[in-house]
């Protein structure tokens, strides 16, 4: 039988333990509340900022429509672009489920991108045409609608006491299932939607219904819809396998470990390759993709380990070019390249009729230990390549050079084809390699209109050259 002398210390100990646990829980609860409040402030600021920026966008677009000069319009479009960028940054921070957010995010992105493309067009002397003006008016109307909906949501927040991140309450539900947060990725999709105020659903639905937007900018709707310009007939898998042995360097030492299908704009067979002599199993170290149409090498990726370099960048350039010739990509010229950690990555562009065609680009990776080609990326080439007629520039090289800023020293000029802003079209332009102080810039003058299309900075590093 245990005595009082035993139970008193045990009871005291239990009381102390309970008190300590209680204080801990209380402290954790306080910290939890502080954290959730500071996060709440951040979320609410994001939301309030979006409402503000959208309001500004719709009013600035109205001014852009009303103003009588391209300069005035450019000024307002530049402000629209800024507000849209800020709205996007804030919007993407909100923990909304993708099914509600993606259309709205896209609308904000495209609004800014559209304003930017308008500004670019006007800066090269192209005035707004009737269709663009109508599109701008439509966008203004949509922004106005969105602005009104955001105000409705604000009202709903205030009435319903909505919180993005309510502090976790000690309830039975929390004990069993944990806290439910809006937009949490792995939760059931219904749960977060039901937590959000109803206004969000209306925004989501309205935004899904917006028409497709096509303009010259990277976020235009036609960018994702691109299809390859030209490709050959359908190739069966055995034929693709035969092409593999002709294109993959060192294929004699590799075995095919599996094949998967690749969907998307460039359907392909993806072959998984493992070195001979490695134990059988699903593991593989290299992948080669052969397009289903035309049977051309789309991509090669070999992750073999790389030894001490014995080949330099200049030699790698030649090796890459020779390799491209053997696999049927002829007439490619090295443009820029970099060597990092034993691997050289070199970009090649097609030279045709004396003109450098940047959209027809292939990148090659060369292991600098043996000079073996360990990577190829021909996606851009296969998407863009088509038969082009000989260029007929309307402006002579001399006339174009007169358009280059006189403070620059022109080193070299050549005729090039460059991608437009959205990357889906092409512009015939003179490329001027110029020096400005210690820096090197590439200036592109449109060979049809004489407008300055683009300025790139060429950066030389220890590893090689690249352009920005």
């Amino acid at each position, binding site marked *: 039988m245990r005595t009082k002398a035993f139970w008193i210390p045990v009871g005291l100990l239990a009381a102390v333990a309970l008190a300590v646990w209680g204080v801990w829980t209380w402290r954790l609860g306080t910290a939890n509340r502080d954290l959730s409040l500071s996060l709440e402030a951040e979320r609410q600021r994001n939301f309030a900022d979006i409402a503000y920026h959208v309001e500004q966008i719709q009013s600035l677009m109205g001014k852009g429509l009303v103003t009588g000069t391209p300069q005035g319009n450019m000024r307002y479009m530049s402000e629209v672009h800024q507000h849209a960028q800020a709205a996007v940054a804030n919007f993407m921070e909100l923990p909304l489920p993708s099914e509600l957010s993606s259309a709205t995010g896209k609308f904000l992105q495209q609004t800014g991108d559209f304003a930017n493309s308008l500004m670019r067009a006007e800066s090269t002397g192209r005035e707004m045409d009737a269709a663009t003006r109508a599109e701008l008016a439509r966008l203004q109307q949509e922004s106005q609608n969105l602005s009104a909906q955001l105000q409705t949501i604000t009202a709903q927040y205030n009435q319903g006491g909505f919180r993005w991140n309510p502090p976790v309450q000690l309830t039975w539900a929390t004990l069993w299932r944990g806290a439910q*947060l809006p937009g949490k990725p792995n939760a059931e999709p219904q749960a977060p939607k039901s937590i959000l105020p109803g206004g969000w659903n209306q925004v989501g639905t309205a935004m899904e219904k917006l028409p497709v937007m096509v303009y010259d900018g990277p976020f235009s709707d036609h960018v994702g819809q691109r299809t390859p310009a030209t490709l050959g007939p359908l190739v069966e898998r055995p034929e693709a396998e035969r092409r593999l042995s002709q294109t993959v360097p060192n294929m004699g030492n590799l075995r095919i470990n599996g094949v998967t299908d690749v969907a998307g704009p460039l359907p392909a067979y993806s072959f998984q390759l493992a070195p001979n002599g490695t134990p059988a199993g699903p593991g593989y170290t290299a992948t080669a993709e052969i397009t289903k149409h035309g049977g051309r090498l789309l991509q090669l990726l070999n992750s073999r380990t790389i030894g001490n370099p014995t080949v330099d960048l200049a030699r790698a350039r030649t090796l890459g070019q020779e390799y491209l010739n053997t696999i049927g990509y002829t007439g490619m010229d090295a443009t820029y390249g970099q060597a990092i950690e034993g691997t050289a990555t070199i970009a090649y562009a097609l030279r045709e009729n004396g003109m450098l065609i940047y959209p027809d680009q292939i990148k090659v990776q060369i292991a600098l230990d043996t000079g073996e080609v360990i990577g190829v990326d021909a996606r*851009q080439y296969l998407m863009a390549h088509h038969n082009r007629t000989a260029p007929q520039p309307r402006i002579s090289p001399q006339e174009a050079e007169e358009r280059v800023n006189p403070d620059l020293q022109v080193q070299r000029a050549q005729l090039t084809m460059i991608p437009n802003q959205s990357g889906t079209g092409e512009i015939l332009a003179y490329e001027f390699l110029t020096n400005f102080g210690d820096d090197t810039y590439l200036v592109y003058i449109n060979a049809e209109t004489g407008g300055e299309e683009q300025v790139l900075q060429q950066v030389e590093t220890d590893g090689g050259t690249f352009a920005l």
Partner: protein
Amino acid sequence: MIRRVALGLLLLVVLAVALPSSVGAQGQPTLRWGSRGTSVRLAQRKLQAWGYYKASVDGVYGRRMYAAVILFQRRNGLRADGVVGPATWRALGYTGRAARGGGGRPARGAARSDDVDLLARVISAEARGEPYEGQVAVGAVLLNRVRDSRFPNTVAGVVYQTHAFESVSNGSIYGPPAASARRAARDAMNGWDPAGGAVFFWNPSKPVSRWIWSRPIIKRIGNHVFAR
């Protein structure tokens, strides 16, 4: 608890050691009395802006430059030897590989290496144990998102988007990346895209929202499904 703190400290030390070396301070040549060129000009401009160097920026390491460097080194706790080596360059704020013949602005090479680092962390946390192709594909998905109108416009914006990646939600992204992940990140930055333009990926053996299965699937690599 103490163990966790110790672990955290260890991690901090590892990061502190790993970060500067990964950026690489060897970009600038060592300067001493008599050195000439754009690097000297770079250092002179910086020292002039901070009030150490009073003479003109002429690209020649002379007597007044020597005095300025000594003063700068003494005030910044460096060995006052008048030699602008890696430590002094770092103190001057040039940690990245500056462009050869570059002007006073930081080279973009450093910014790219920041992105590679962040990408490598996500790849390491999300695709550890996946085939190399799968690791590059995860990096490519992130970069495809940067270019997609439905997602933020910067690598950091995409990575830290609320609830976008499990590794950010559960903190595993803050561990040091595996070596293969760094290489995969660089390949993805150079444009290799085994995911074929995908902007979503998920592991079908884990619970995911039903909505995500409605996306057009491009390819399966290892344990991941990739979709547009």
